[in-house]
Each structure stands twice: as structure tokens, then as C-alpha cells.
């Protein structure tokens, strides 16, 4: 089953991950069920149970393909992990019953490695899956009688525990790297926006500097031609001073300008268009409500 999505939101990623996991688990469970069908019926039944859960997961995901509710994808992901875990626990029970030597908790290790490398974007899903994979085999091991425990290799259950703890460490590191990459991307994006904003302010300054100079020179000319207006001119100048200061402040970003690419607004209409562009990109950058 292939469901493609171009969007890269957390909900989309979680949905795609759950789909991939369900598809692989379902295919493996079906093959193993068929393989053990005529050999060990109990083991075949455990894989059949896995196939049913994984198949049901696919059914839920298919119905969730439009809205892609993240809760459904998370639930399905954990359900698949638990189904695989219980499938392994059940077939271990039958292997022990038969007294046949077998490789213990192999499925748990494989699933833990996949989770560590696949790193679900919703962290509580990854951690709760790994905790389940750590607790379940140890619980089963300590439920077994000493004779049954003796059928396993001397390294168990320690080896399984160490592998799953190592997977937890890998997962932790991956989350840290993902967080760093995300922060870097956010920093880069905000730098671009700040640069754009500085550019906008500089455009505004460009548009008002000549009119301000006209006012400034006009006041000076009035003073020269009509010396009796001095008291009024002083008042106008006092009010003009903060405007002059604000105009200088608008150019704070000019040291970051690339003069080869600079294309400042030459009219108020151009400036208005620029403001609308920034306004709509700020609107688009708003994080989705999950």
C-alpha cells in the first residue's frame, strides 16, 4: 500500500512511518505464518496474531490517509510494536515448551534497532516503544522456571537488555541531532526574515529621506528669509529632531546589505507590496496546530 504525501509536517511524517512499519511487519508476519503453518501451530498462531494487528493497523491508516491525525498514527505505531513483542513472547513460549534451542528475543533486538534508526518524530512514541521492548523480555525471562531459563544462552537476558539500552542511547543521540538541525534551520530562517525586514526598513528610510531633507531645508530657508519666525522655527526643529533620529534608526540593517542584490522600494506602492509579502510569509510560517 503506497500513500504519498508531499507535505513534511510532523503528522505526515508520523503517518508515513507508521505505514512503512505496518507494511513491513504485515509482510513478515504473513510469510512466517505460512512458513510455520504445517510445523508448529502455536508459533504460526502467534505470527497470525501479528498479521491481524498489522493488517488492522493498515486499515486504520488507510482511513486516516486524508486527515492524517497524528494520534491515530502514534497509536498504530505502538500497537504494531506491542503486537510484534507479544508475537515473539508467544512463540518463545512454544519454543520452550518443545525444548528446542532457539535464539532468544531476536525480534525485540531487531525492532529496537529499527526504532533507534528510524526515530519516530513524536518522541514519546519512540521512548514508550523502547521501554516496552526493554521490560517485556526481562519480565518473560523472570517468569520462566530456572530449567527453562537454562535453555537460553548464558548471555541472556543481559545481552538483550544491553542491545535495547544501546538502541535507547542511539535514539537519544538521534533526537539531539534532529533538535540541533531543527534549531539551525530555524536560525537560518529567522536570519533571512530579519535581513528582509531590515531591507524593508531601509526601503522605508529611502522613501522618506528626501522629503525629510526638504522639510529640514525648508525650515532653514524660512529662518534665513524671515528671521522673525525664529521662535516658531525652533519649535518645529525640536519636533523634527525625533523624526530625524527615527529615520537614522531605520537604517540599522544596512551593514548586512548585499549591494549587488539590493533592490529597494522606489515608491510607496513598492513598499506596500513588500510589507504584504512579509506579512503573508509570517502567516505561512506559523506552526501547525497539532
Amino acid at each position, binding site marked *: 500500500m503506497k500513500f504519498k504525501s508531499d507535505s513534511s509536517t510532523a503528522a505526515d511524517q508520523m503517518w508515513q512511518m507508521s505505514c512503512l512499519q505496518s507494511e513491513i511487519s504485515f509482510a513478515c508476519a504473513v510469510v512466517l505464518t505460512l512458513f510455520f503453518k504445517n510445523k508448529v501451530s502455536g508459533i504460526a498462531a502467534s505470527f497470525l496474531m501479528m498479521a491481524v494487528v498489522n493488517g488492522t493497523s493498515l486499515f486504520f491508516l488507510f482511513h486516516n490517509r486524508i486527515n492524517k491525525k497524528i494520534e491515530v498514527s502514534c497509536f498504530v505505531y505502538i500497537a504494531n510494536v506491542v503486537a510484534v513483542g507479544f508475537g515473539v513472547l508467544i512463540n518463545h513460549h512454544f519454543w520452550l515448551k518443545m525444548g528446542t534451542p532457539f535464539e532468544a528475543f531476536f525480534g525485540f533486538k531487531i525492532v529496537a534497532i529499527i526504532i533507534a534508526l528510524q526515530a519516530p518524530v513524536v518522541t514519546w512514541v519512540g521512548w514508550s516503544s523502547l521501554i516496552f521492548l526493554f521490560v517485556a523480555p526481562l519480565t518473560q525471562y523472570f517468569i520462566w522456571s530456572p530449567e527453562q531459563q537454562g535453555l537460553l544462552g548464558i548471555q541472556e537476558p543481559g545481552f538483550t537488555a544491553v542491545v535495547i539500552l544501546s538502541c535507547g542511547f542511539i535514539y537519544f543521540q538521534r533526537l539531539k541531532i534532529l533538535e540541533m538541525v531543527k534549531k539551525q534551520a530555524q536560525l537560518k530562517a529567522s536570519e533571512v526574515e530579519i535581513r528582509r525586514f531590515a531591507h524593508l526598513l*531601509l526601503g522605508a*528610510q*529611502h522613501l522618506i*529621506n*528626501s522629503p*525629510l*531633507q*526638504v*522639510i*529640514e*531645508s*525648508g525650515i*532653514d*530657508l524660512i529662518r*534665513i*528669509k524671515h528671521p522673525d519666525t525664529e521662535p516658531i522655527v525652533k519649535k518645529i526643529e525640536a519636533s523634527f529632531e525625533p523624526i*530625524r533620529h527615527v*529615520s*537614522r534608526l531605520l*537604517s540599522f540593517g*544596512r*551593514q548586512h*546589505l548585499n*549591494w549587488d542584490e539590493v533592490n*529597494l522600494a*522606489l515608491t510607496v506602492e513598492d513598499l506596500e507590496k513588500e510589507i504584504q509579502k512579509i506579512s503573508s510569509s509570517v502567516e505561512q510560517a506559523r506552526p501547525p496546530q497539532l
Partner: protein
Amino acid sequence: MSPTVVFLEDNQDLRDLLQSIIESSLQVSCAAYESVKNLIANEATVLQSRIVILDIELGFKQPTGIDAYQWLIEKKFNGHIFFLTGHGYSNPLVQAASKAGVTIWEKPISSAQIVSNFKSILEYGAQDIVGAV
């Protein structure tokens, strides 16, 4: 007779005001042009003046004050050049001109400062102009 001061400025109101201020304060003649094309068309007049003030942005896709500055250098203009700019102060070409001794003023600047600098040049031929703002 050639004007003493030449303005290159695309804003007509500003051209008129600056011209009036300089003429009434310093009793010298001024000429003002709105584009680099007009400035070059009056080459003889411009090159004989003592002071040239250049605005940088002169309209959409129009040659800038920097082009005018380069033209003046090519023509070996030996008067004083000033940039009167709103935002072009950090432009590398303007910065290079500043290092070469050109004074850069940022709009808005008081006319008193302009007049006082011009007075120094005209009276004493001062080379050290204080006032890169």
C-alpha cells in the same frame, strides 16, 4: 559665468530649496541637475565648478550618483565632491569614495552644516572638511 556649486538631485523641491539656501547664504551661483545625463550634458559648466553635491539614488534603473562620481574622477574634476545620501552610506563604492576624501552626508542634514562646510571651502579652500556624518 560658471556656477560655484552644482547639485545632482532627482527631487525638484529639494533642488530648489538647497539652491535658494546656498545662493542666499553664501552669495554664490548654483546649478542643479536631476539626472546624470543632464550633468554630463553640461560638462563644461560642471567641471569648472568648485563644489559638486551628488544624490545617489536618482530613480528606477537610472544611472546613480556613484556613476556621476566616477565620471567626475575620469574627467579629473579638481573641486570638492559631496555625497548627500539617505541610505547609501554603506555602499562599498561610496565607502571607497569616502576613503578617497569625498565627504558623505546623510539625509536629513541641517543646511547650517552644509553652508558652514561650503564657506570653509570657498573662503580658505580647506582640504580637511569635517563632516562625514
